[in-house]
């Protein structure tokens, strides 16, 4: 029950602010401690606001052996942020993910869990960032 509630709240707000967690705890008659404990256990929940676009670099085994690390480094350089951070204008959040299950196309990057780019090289990072910028009308 608790996890489903947290998921719905995060879907609406984009992250889990302290107030929201307090309210959830109150409504479900749980301690805030309990709610935070569960929320912080799972990777899916975030406590800080995230950017408009979420860029996820897959770090699965197949992606790793086919050079995901260099793709991530290039991403970090071009966006000027580290993994797990958000650009200052809140347009892009850069994250890594265990495996998206598209190992045949390794290395893989997903954008907003929807668009998927495969068989990448560091040189193609530029195109991806451009497409994020243009499609979603923001400037990084």
């Amino acid at each position, binding site marked *: *029950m*608790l*996890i*489903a509630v*947290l*998921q719905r709240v995060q879907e609406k707000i984009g992250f889990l602010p302290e107030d929201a967690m307090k309210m959830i705890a109150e409504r479900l008659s749980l301690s805030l401690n309990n709610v935070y*404990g*569960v929320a912080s*256990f*799972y*990777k*899916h*929940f975030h406590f800080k606001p995230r950017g408009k676009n979420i860029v996820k670099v897959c*770090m*699965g*085994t*197949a*992606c*790793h*052996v*086919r050079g995901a690390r*260099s793709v991530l480094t290039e991403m970090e350089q071009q966006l000027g942020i580290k993994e797990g951070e958000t650009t200052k204008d809140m347009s892009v959040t850069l994250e890594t*993910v*265990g*495996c*998206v*299950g*598209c*190992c*045949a*196309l*390794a290395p*893989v990057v997903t954008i907003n*869990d929807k*668009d*998927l*780019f*495969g068989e990448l090289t560091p040189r193609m990072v530029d195109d991806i960032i451009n497409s994020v910028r243009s499609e979603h009308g923001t400037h990084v």
Partner: protein
Amino acid sequence: MELTFKRLENVKDLDNLHKKLRKEHQESTAHRVRVCCGTACQATGSLKLIDQFEKEAAQKQVNLEIVKTGCQGFCQRGPVVIQDPQEIFYQKVKVADVPTLFSDSVLHGVPYRKQLYREFALSDPNEKVQDIPFYKKQKRLALHRNGVVDPCNIYDAIREDGYAGLAKVITEMKPDEVIEIMKKSGLRGRGGAGFPAGLKWEHTKKSGAKIKAVVCNGDEGDPGAFMDRSLMEGDPHSVLEGMLINAYAIGAQFGYIYVRHEYPLAVKNLGVAINQARSLGLLGKNILGSSLEFDIEIKEGAGAFVCGESTALVASLEGERGMPRPRPPRLSEAAGGLWNMPTNLNNVETFANVPTIITKGLDYYTKIGTEKSKGTKVFALTGKIKNTGLIEVPMGITLREIIFDIGGGMLNPERQFKAVQTGGPSGGCIPAQFLDMQVDFDTLATVGSIMGSGGMVVLDEDDCMVDVAKFFLSFTKSESCGKCPPCRVGTWQMYEILDRITAGRGEKGDIERLEKMGKLVVAGSLCGLGNSAPNPVLSTIKYFREEYEEHVNDKYCRAKRCQGMGSYRILPEHCILCGLCKQACAFDAVVELRDKFFIDQDYCTRCKACYSVCPTEAILIEKRSAHAETRK
């Protein structure tokens, strides 16, 4: 096209529907193409192909049936289109190919040669699916409907014998007979540990409680594995049917499918499948007119690898932190499972195998596989290999057949095969000397690896085994739930040592320390994550010890992957004097002379910038020697 549903009141209704659909299908004059809509093919643009096919058909006023199938397996060559009835296989189809493909192949049956499968660029094409080496040695039981049916259309599944197994058990068998069949079939859990499914069912049934649950484990967290995802996306009805048969056998009322939240398409397709099954009365009360009452709900995971462990998964379903707990009580015992109901938990692939065993019978099933591992196994074949994708092979096939016949050999033919990693973060690396080994649960265990859920990552000479071990530990380190200190602290410590070794700061005694710690972590952890987390390290030390020793003693990485290793030299005979290395070097270590470049060892930080930028592979990384070139 909107589907209409009429509740199936009894087994006869289902049978009639099946016959009717079969007949319509055989008599249909419509042209048919099957377009793969698995995640990988969607990423390469299969949805656009469908639009184009629809346009072409509308323009030419032809009745064209487009089947949006689940993963057809050959993800490397996506998007994949198969044209029926000739079963012509088209690979890497682009929107621009569709008009010609449609007019030549679909309308007139003349193969469109450009996008046919070719083993090599110049070899003759293979037209049909069954001629392609990738598919030839496969045996599809769990995946038999994957790639044939539209997962969002229950009638497709019923036409291809879907729910026939359920009808058979309801009409012909008592629950105990079903369990007996499952025990005799020798089906072992496909989640990794290989516990006999029939025994598990029997335990749950014997708990004696009235209310029981069936849980399907779709929390496929192993990096490099996507079997369960493809099954849930491509043929959700086989999973539902397996759960239904299970529920009938053990007398369960509630079913849950726990799906990883990174798999949105699987959640969607399962949801559609469950709703359609409900509308036909295949879920709910009085299923097919019997007294069976069972319903299934999807629960989305929230991202924790440890939730693949059964007790942790149940805790997560209950809304708690997904931490494993000591057993007993086992899930199958009273007060042990989900909300204290005795619970039978199996993997997605295990459930998908159940209907086939029931419909095809024991004689058929037990002939496939080895003595102790029956049936087939689905593998996700990935890494440095030519044909990557989803394969299903009979147990007992050799690694060589999988990698060189089905997989087509190495991605870069100039590089030698080094090892194959099976079982994900819990498994180990199997070196080349075991290539002729049979693949089954017990044989893999003898060489220090496991079957696992079925990830198979092929590594070549460019992969550093120490780096691979470090990669898996960085994964288990961050995924350890933190309950048992040996796992929480031990994996972290081991990671730190590996990190030091791969950065060129390894010390004497590090390898022994790793071995000792690995054994302690195994001994001191509660669940499968901790018990198996050191496996990648221990197995690589066992088979590739000299590589570890080179890293520690000579500060040299033979795969040239680790930074800060070896000494760098420019080979004048390969160098074309382009100067890119000089531009790339941030430390001014590349010195330009009138007729050559050289690397100043006093300045070089071994960051690999020059190595990766050189177009002619003129930069050589070798073991450090006493006479180093410097400006002085």
